[in-house]
């Protein structure tokens, strides 16, 4: 056999083996692909599934032998088929609660989901035989499962409210549980939703940020404040040191939620403080009471300070509009605005003296900023006056030249 013939033979054998490898039968996909409806759907969905992408197959969850062409033989032996709803958490946990197994695919993934789930409201009700509650597949899907970091995943931050709302916003479905179903609608109006949906701010809270993921449960009154403090530590600490803390505990009020609400949390405004319309303080404090007076005092300081900042900002805007460079006082005004934020924060500690001190510190800086703004406006006036005078002289100069040119044009011309 010549070398060329040997090479040709090897090539043919190679092609045969490669073709054989590619033609490895998968009876699950072949049969389910020929079916209709729910039995056919997994074939398409599994193409986007993370399990399929990392090399797992149907048999890794459902058992059986996809290499067998005969359906009965393929579904013999280890085949477990589709699990019952009540058994789904344990079904998934066969791998997801096995640290050694999971390490081979994603060492960063937690393996305590089943334990957490059993502590959740969903898990406890499931344990009591209620199969309407959410199991793994309700939030993650069954055959199109994607990791939470994929933007199209049901568990990606900005998809979570919809995922939870599929059940919790369905009044008919939630009827047996007797809990409100307006959370999703309320959340959509909240400042948190604006940050998450409009600004795509991944740090903004969705349902799971406050209620937990696998261990989802409504926070109790005493723990709501700790939930909020995960992101808002400063007002929480100030509140804990304030006289409100013991009063709220005695009255059984939740802390942050009592004034700010829960799902429909709006961006706080100064109107919430004090004794005017929209103020939350008057819901507890009677006119003339000490608390009423403190609230009114803090409101007066804060609104006064805010007005002064706005006035200084308007002054600088006017100067900038007239073309004078005022970036340095604008930068300083940002510092003063930070003091206003601090003063507003101090209201959570019922600290009128602290609020006044912050405002006084800011006002001292505003004196210089206003002076810079007024100087900039004087500079703008000076520039315009200078331009008017210079332009007048230049126009006279141009006019003189124009008249001279006209005279020259009328005079005799030299021959070409």
């Amino acid at each position, binding site marked *: 056999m010549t070398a060329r013939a040997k090479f040709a033979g090897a090539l043919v054998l190679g092609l045969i083996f490669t073709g054989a490898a590619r033609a490895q039968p998968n009876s699950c996909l072949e049969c389910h692909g020929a079916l209709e409806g729910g039995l056919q759907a997994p074939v398409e969905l599994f193409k986007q599934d993370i399990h399929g992408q990392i090399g797992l197959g149907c048999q890794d969850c459902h058992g059986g032998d996809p290499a067998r062409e005969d359906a009965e033989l393929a579904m013999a032996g280890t085949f477990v088929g589709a699990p019952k709803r009540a058994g789904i958490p344990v079904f998934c946990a066969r791998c997801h609660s096995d640290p050694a197994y999971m390490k081979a695919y994603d060492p960063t993934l937690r393996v305590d989901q089943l334990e957490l789930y059993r502590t959740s409201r969903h898990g406890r009700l499931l344990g009591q035989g209620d199969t309407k509650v959410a199991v793994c597949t309700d939030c993650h899907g069954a055959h199109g499962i994607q990791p939470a970091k994929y933007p199209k995943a049901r568990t990606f931050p900005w998809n979570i409210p919809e995922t939870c709302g599929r059940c919790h916003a369905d009044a008919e479905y939630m009827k047996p549980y007797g809990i409100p179903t307006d959370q999703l609608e309320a959340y959509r109006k909240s400042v948190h939703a604006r940050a998450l949906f409009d600004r795509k701010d991944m740090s903004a809270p969705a349902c799971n940020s406050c209620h937990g993921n696998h261990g989802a449960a409504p926070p109790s009154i005493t723990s709501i404040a700790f939930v909020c403090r995960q992101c808002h530590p400063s007002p929480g600490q100030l509140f804990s040191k304030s006289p409100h803390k013991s009063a709220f505990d005695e009255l059984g009020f939740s802390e942050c939620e009592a004034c700010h609400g829960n799902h429909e949390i709006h961006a706080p405004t100064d109107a919430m403080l004090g004794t005017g319309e929209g103020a939350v303080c008057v819901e507890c404090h009677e006119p003339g009471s000490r608390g009423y007076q403190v609230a009114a005092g803090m409101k007066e300081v804060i609104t006064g300070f805010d007005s002064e900042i706005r006035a200084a900002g308007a002054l600088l805007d006017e100067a900038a509009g007239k073309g004078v460079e005022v970036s*340095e006082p604008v930068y300083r005004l940002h510092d003063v605005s930070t003091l206003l934020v601090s003063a507003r924060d101090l209201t959570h500690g019922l600290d009128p003296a602290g609020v006044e001190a912050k405002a006084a510190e800011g006002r001292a800086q505003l004196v210089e900023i206003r002076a810079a703004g007024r100087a900039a406006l004087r500079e703008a006036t000076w520039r315009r006056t200078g331009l008017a005078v210079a332009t007048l002289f230049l126009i006279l*100069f141009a006019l003189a*030249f124009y008249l001279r040119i006209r005279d020259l044009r009328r005079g005799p011309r030299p021959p*070409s």
Partner: protein
Amino acid sequence: MGPKTAGLLAFFDERFKIGALLKLAGKKTVPEHRHAFWYFFGGIALFLTVLQIATGILLLLYYVPTVDAAHESIVFIMSQVKFGWLIRSVHSWTANILIGVLFVHMFSTFFLKAYRRPRELTWVSGFLLFVLFLALGFSGYLLPWSELSFFATRVGTNIAGGFPVIGPALKQFILGGPTIGQSTLTRFFWLHVAVLPLAALALIGIHVLLVQILGMSRPVSLADRPARDIPFFPDFIYKDVLGWTLILILIGILCVFLPWEIGRKADPFASTPVGIKPEWYFTFMFSTLKIIPSHVLSIEGETLAILGFFAGGLLWLLVPFLDRRAAREKPSPSFTVIGIILSLYIAVMTVLTYTVPRL
């Protein structure tokens, strides 16, 4: 005039032959006709160049060419230095008006066929000056180290990098490294205040000398009409001064009511702002690159466009040698049509850049 002043004048006249120069200027004449208005754009360009040099020298007193301090030094000039706002605004506004005036001067020269024999080299030196002033504008735009200038420079240098064969090496040379940084700022500063001004001054000397030696051209279309000339001094100079005064008033108004903005400091790690575009005089090329198909006859569209600009520039430079009819003092309507198409193309593409945001 007192005896002391007369003595002083006589001293300088003896050494500089001022009297002889004035006598020569008095004898020099300039053609006067209905298209003579366009002659003044050359004088205005010269006046604006003087303003550029004067204000540029003053800016050098406070400008710091480092990435850490460049932007801050511009803020300092605009807010703290006495008349700094005026000097910087005059420099920036004048630079833009100068480029506009150069466009008008070049196209008016083209349409009047003033490039024809023996003024071929006046045209060539003028076109090279135009390219130098574009380079001065490009290099000066980065110096404030603002966000817009930083990203516009990135766009511009990417275009240069797309030039076939030498593109990557050219980009590397312009940037002084793989990305825009301190090396780029140093190079642009070096080009803007030393290399390009020296080259421009040398070319301006040649260009003005040629204009003085050869005089100003009379358009071909007026060949059959009786020639009428006016003295260069004082008639023509007076008109020049009138034009300079009017442009000075315009610059003053712009600087007071619309001082040249500083913008935010460049952040090399920030993502490119939406709708970033180069300075207005480069936008016709920028828009062309955006609308050209990705491939034209299996050639990459962007490469083809860059080659087209280069070839077009080369042909534009050689116009005096290509327009044989004008060289024989005959009308050359085909070149006029080419000029109209080109000027319309530049105008339309420039307007499109600002009116169609997502071109």
